[in-house]
């Protein structure tokens, strides 16, 4: 292993992770400095149930029309994010638990997940360029984030066998991209997962309070 790769896998990644955590911390402080609305009405439903439903309905494509009607797009979403999870996991497995990737079945599983995400990433990029409605709203950050993810998947696909002799370049690219992501993500749209719990918490709390969430049918409701 070259000194560069060793540094990238260890010191650089740790510094980058600490940086990302610090920026995320500041981002939360930023978000929580905005005032929040106080709810003053009697509840018709359960806020906790609404929050739970809102947070989890991403995994219930049948419950959301936009997912139910476009199952193909939903599947792309699932594949893409499974690939993200696998690639992130690989950034920890390679330096800290390399024996995991000594099992060829695990390597192949990761390669399938990351490889599929790579193709979905290309499809998403194509869609963003092709569809006028999506093109109009797309920013440089949107394109850059997607291109970076595609490159990250490509590098990850080649890196997971963790064969230093044959694929050191791929490993170096993979960890260089990882470090870059950790610095860049908090300032880009890729950091959207930081907001996901909050947007869904706020929406779920309101909708749960009003009895809209969880969406169900046939319940009896009296005025309160």
């Amino acid at each position: 292993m070259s000194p560069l790769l060793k540094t990238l896998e260890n010191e650089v990644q740790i510094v980058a992770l600490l940086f990302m955590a610090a920026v995320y911390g500041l981002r939360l402080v930023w978000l929580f400095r905005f005032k929040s609305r106080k709810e003053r009405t009697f509840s018709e439903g359960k806020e906790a149930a609404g929050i739970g439903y809102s947070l989890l309905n991403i995994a219930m494509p049948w419950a959301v029309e936009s997912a139910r009607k476009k199952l193909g797009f939903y599947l792309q979403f699932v594949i893409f994010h499974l690939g993200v999870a696998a690639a992130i996991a690989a950034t920890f497995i390679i330096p800290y638990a390399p024996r995991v990737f000594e099992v060829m079945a695990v390597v192949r599983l990761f390669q399938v997940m990351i490889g599929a995400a790579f193709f979905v990433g290309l499809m998403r990029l194509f869609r963003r360029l092709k569809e006028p409605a999506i093109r109009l709203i797309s920013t440089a950050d949107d394109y850059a984030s997607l291109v970076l993810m595609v490159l990250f998947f490509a590098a990850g696909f080649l890196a997971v066998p963790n064969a230093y002799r044959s694929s050191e370049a791929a490993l170096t690219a993979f960890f260089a991209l990882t470090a870059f992501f950790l610095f860049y993500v908090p300032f880009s749209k890729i950091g959207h997962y930081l907001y996901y719990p909050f947007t869904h918490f706020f929406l779920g709390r309101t909708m749960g309070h009003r009895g809209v969430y969880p969406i169900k049918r046939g319940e009896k409701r009296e005025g309160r």
Partner: protein
Amino acid sequence: MSSKKSEARAAVMTPLATKSQEKAKEEKLGSVAEGRLKTYERKANNAKRFVALLRKRMTRQIAASLAACVHCGRCAESCHYYLARPDDPTMTPVWKADQVRRIFKRHVDWTGRVIPWWVHAWTPVDDEDLNRLKDVVFGTCSACRRCTLNCPMGVDTALIIRFARGLLTELGIVPEGVFNVSRDQWETGNQMAVAEVDYLETLQWMKEELQAELGDPTVDVPVDKPDCDFLYVINPREIKFDPRSIANAAKIFHLAGESWTLPGKGWDMTNFGLYSGDDSLGGWVAKNVYEAASRLRAKRIVISECGHGYRSTRWEGYNWAGVDQRLPMESVVVTLGRYLTEGRIKVNKAKNSEPVTFHDSCNIARSGGITEEPRRVLRRVCADFREMAPNRTENYCCTGGGGLLSMAEYRPLRLEVARIKAEQLRATGAKLVCTMCHNCVDGLADVIKHYKLDMKVVQVLDLVSRGIPR
């Protein structure tokens, strides 16, 4: 940055009309003089004021919704504007919200403050830019919240749109209709400027009609009667255009042996603050209702059939007014359901033999949580009830929501995109479309007329009243 770089070239572009505002200033209306109703000041630096207001009024919920969007475009096909105009990329909810998001990014968010071009961050530079934003947030969105429930990120686009409307209302950069209705509600306490004498005379007229219809001189339409079971609050449209709905309610309450009253003041439960984004108007109007109930020592408040009125009075008003809810409150449809369940009124389905479908009001279903109660009532009073598809929280807007019925300049676009609603209505084969919202009644009536559908709009009270045997 030049205003020409604004992407806010909406499908509709209308000049800012300020005739009514100028007149209100000349007449020194109380609401204008006291600063409650804001008017347009040409010489003010409105772009700067807009940004300052945006920063000042930003809430955690709105900031999260503005920061979280990933531009995936999943919201597009949930919007009837986009579905009706799929070749117009400015019709997507995300593009509309982005016109606000870009300003947020430029002034509040991090990356956009440093490298604005990277994230499309932008700032309005003059009143033209704000006027274009006005056309987007007032003219191309009925704030139906359908996109919100379809967003994988939980972005509440309707909340963003209302927020932007509120900022523009503060600057007087609003469609003339929005100003006029806000003025009427501030000045008279009701959004149709119904005079007190007209209100009381209409109630008296309905009382006499009912007494004649039922042959019972004890039937009453009580006003300001203290210590009743409930205070009934209505939509001024009922006084002005549809007094029969009050008579229907009074008849049913009478037959159910109910103790109820209308208030002499604070009877308008509609609330233009919801549409204009003006929380101060919203809070004041809602508080009038709450205070009327308190003054008359009513045990609860029952809200007549009105979508935005229900949402404003039941859910938003307390928060806008900054007062805690003290009395239980319900829609009159819930009250009707209880009467039927308890056997307090008898109905005959055969009296409503025509096929009926139900249109869920956005403010009642998606933002209010009532979907099953009207269906239970309709199944009891109609011989042929059929669902439209989609329905409940997935129903499409009547197209007149978000105050659009008061904005004449956006009517052509509204009726064009109403094609989605028309197709949905036509597919039911129903002869009657029932809704529990006066705003939807007018919105649907427009759709039916424009698309030449063979159906009529009715409300739940109409059908229940009609179903009661003589």
